[in-house]
């Protein structure tokens, strides 16, 4: 029996991070929120709204990192196009918020968003219909990325486009979307994107309380997604996914339809990215095609690489660390930042193939093998 429990923890070395992570995450967020809401601004422990929104943004990135890690770290599919799913989710939310402005736009047009008015559009394009309903918009926020991921994945994985080809195709995908959303004819506000939001579900977006609420929701959703993903990945499906990563053809020869597994995992990951995007937009206050740019998608990958792919916790840590570093660096010495980022790419891939968590894991693995030796003796 002890053996079995031992095996349990062995097979799923990430499993036991879950609880502490959730606890820490939630407690930190709750503390920060409380500090922001209830402490006087001059208190030393006061957390400014600026910080809250910043942390909120980081958490969205962490969620995004999870999405990337799930397919890259666990299934070995390197997607350089996750920015696309993120942005699509964001646009869905953006469109909702845009519709919420109603007649408070600069032109006071009750139906059309401002950019449509001055581009002289007469009526709302069909894909904007229904976006004034929160539930519908949120449905879109997960459906559209999910659908895109499904179609793309279904095509790609069934025809066994793998490895580098797939990465390049995903990059092409997000690039194509970038170009498309830049076009003003598309009716997504072109380069300016969607901005100048007023309120969400009737709550003023500028109000601290709303920001804190959004921040909390982000944290909770991150925790939920973390736990669910953990559960999925530690089920047998998780093992199959790992098997596919290590030797796809072998997995096929023992009877798994690997393409289907990959498609569904890809969709799941895309949906997470979409949710992250939807949470990101109201907190930063703008969504524009820049989010589609391939370089963003690649940056997400490096978060995961730094934190340690193949471990959910690693992805989160990576996202938080890199972005925190970015915020600090770009403030201090903007030029150095790109050098630092570049160097990070090179060094991590060369010396930390499994990132920080990998480092930690290696040490543990050593200990375990020693233990095994003893148990055999």
């Amino acid at each position, binding site marked *: 029996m002890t053996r079995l429990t031992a095996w349990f923890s062995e097979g799923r070395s990430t499993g036991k991070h879950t609880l502490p992570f959730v606890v820490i995450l939630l407690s930190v967020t709750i503390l920060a929120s409380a500090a922001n809401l209830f402490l006087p601004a001059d208190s030393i422990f006061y957390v400014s709204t600026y910080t809250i929104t910043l942390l909120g943004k980081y958490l969205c990135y962490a969620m995004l990192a999870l999405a990337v890690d799930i397919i890259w770290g666990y299934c070995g599919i390197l997607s350089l196009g996750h920015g696309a799913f993120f942005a699509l989710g964001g646009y869905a939310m953006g469109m909702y918020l845009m519709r919420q402005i109603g007649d408070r736009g600069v032109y006071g047009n009750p139906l059309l968003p401002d950019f449509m008015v001055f581009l002289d559009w007469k009526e709302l394009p069909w894909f904007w219909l229904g976006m004034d309903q929160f539930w519908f918009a949120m449905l879109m926020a997960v459906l559209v990325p999910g659908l895109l991921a499904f179609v793309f994945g279904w095509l790609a994985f069934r025809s066994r486009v793998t490895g580098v080809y797939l990465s390049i195709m995903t990059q092409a995908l997000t690039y194509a979307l970038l170009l498309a959303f830049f076009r003003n004819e598309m009716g997504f506000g072109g380069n300016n994107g969607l901005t100048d939001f007023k309120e969400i579900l009737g709550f003023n977006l500028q109000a601290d309380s709303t920001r804190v609420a959004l921040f909390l929701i982000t944290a909770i959703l991150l925790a939920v997604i973390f736990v669910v993903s953990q559960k999925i990945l530690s*089920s047998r499906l998780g*093992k199959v996914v790992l*098997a596919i990563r290590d030797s796809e053809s*072998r997995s096929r020869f023992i*009877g798994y339809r690997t393409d289907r597994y990959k498609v569904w995992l890809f969709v799941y990951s895309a949906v997470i990215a979409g949710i992250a995007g939807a949470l990101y937009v109201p907190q930063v206050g703008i969504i524009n095609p820049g989010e589609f740019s391939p370089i963003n998608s690649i940056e997400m990958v490096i978060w995961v690489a730094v934190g340690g792919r193949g471990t959910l916790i690693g992805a989160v840590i990576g996202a938080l660390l890199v972005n925190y570093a970015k915020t600090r660096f770009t403030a201090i010495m903007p030029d150095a930042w790109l050098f630092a980022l570049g160097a990070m790419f090179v060094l991590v891939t060369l010396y930390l193939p499994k990132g920080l968590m990998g480092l930690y894991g290696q040490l543990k693995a050593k200990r375990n093998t020693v233990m095994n030796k003893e148990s055999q003796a």
Partner: protein
Amino acid sequence: MSTLDSTREFFRRDQVWPFLAPEQAAVNVDNQVILYVEGLNLSFDGFKALNNLNLYVNDGELRCLIGANGAGKTTLMDVITGKTQCDSGTVFFGQNHNLLNKDEAEIAQLGIGRKFQKPTVFEEQTVFDNLELSLKTDKRVLPTLFSRLTPTQIDHIDEVLKTIGLAKHRFMLAGALSHGQKQWLEIGMLLVAEPRLLLIDEPVAGMTAQETERTAELLTSLAGERTVIVVEHDMEFVRSIARTVTVLHQGSVLAEGTMDQIQSNKDVIEVYLGEEAAAGEQA
């Protein structure tokens, strides 16, 4: 049948839709033959890997495939297991399963297991997990997600672990196993899947003498309830296990029969054993 009926048929509660249902129609082996390979042709830009190859394997027999390198042994297995598409010919599993229009996964689910020349196991996972993954279960996505290990399954795995002598190493990462152990693990993965037909490519390569012996025993013991096709270069090994031997040469069957018949067969001697003998004398 009217559209109404067809829709009703489509939505019948008491059955799953065909595209969801696993193709579990039993293998029909009424006339004792489990594998029909007929007129198989395949060429890689010009080079004919398979040349009008015909092969029939009886249910429950243990068949050895021998032949010089490039004779088409591995390619044949590739075609049977759906890894490679052939240019022309037919491959039937029993009388009712045409393997050529199925992919690897379907073929595997039909009960055809394969072991590769170079041992391929899931190195990042434990021996136990490797076996768990290979269990004969519903391999579709959702069932896999919610599946639990039943006690019987665990017992089954433990049993196999004993047979392949890795009981001690069940929690070890497969990557940490020795070459021979990997070979065994891979065989174990075949066993735990309870296939009808096993395709085994050079099982004893890199095994010690006694390991080889045990493999021989295992394979012979398997024959009967399962059908086993073994590709092997080690003639000693072949001699020790073989009932029927098929000699492939340049993509087609050169000779077939018992070991003795084969050894006495002229063209075999010149194209294959000749070399072997020569090699043997030198060694």
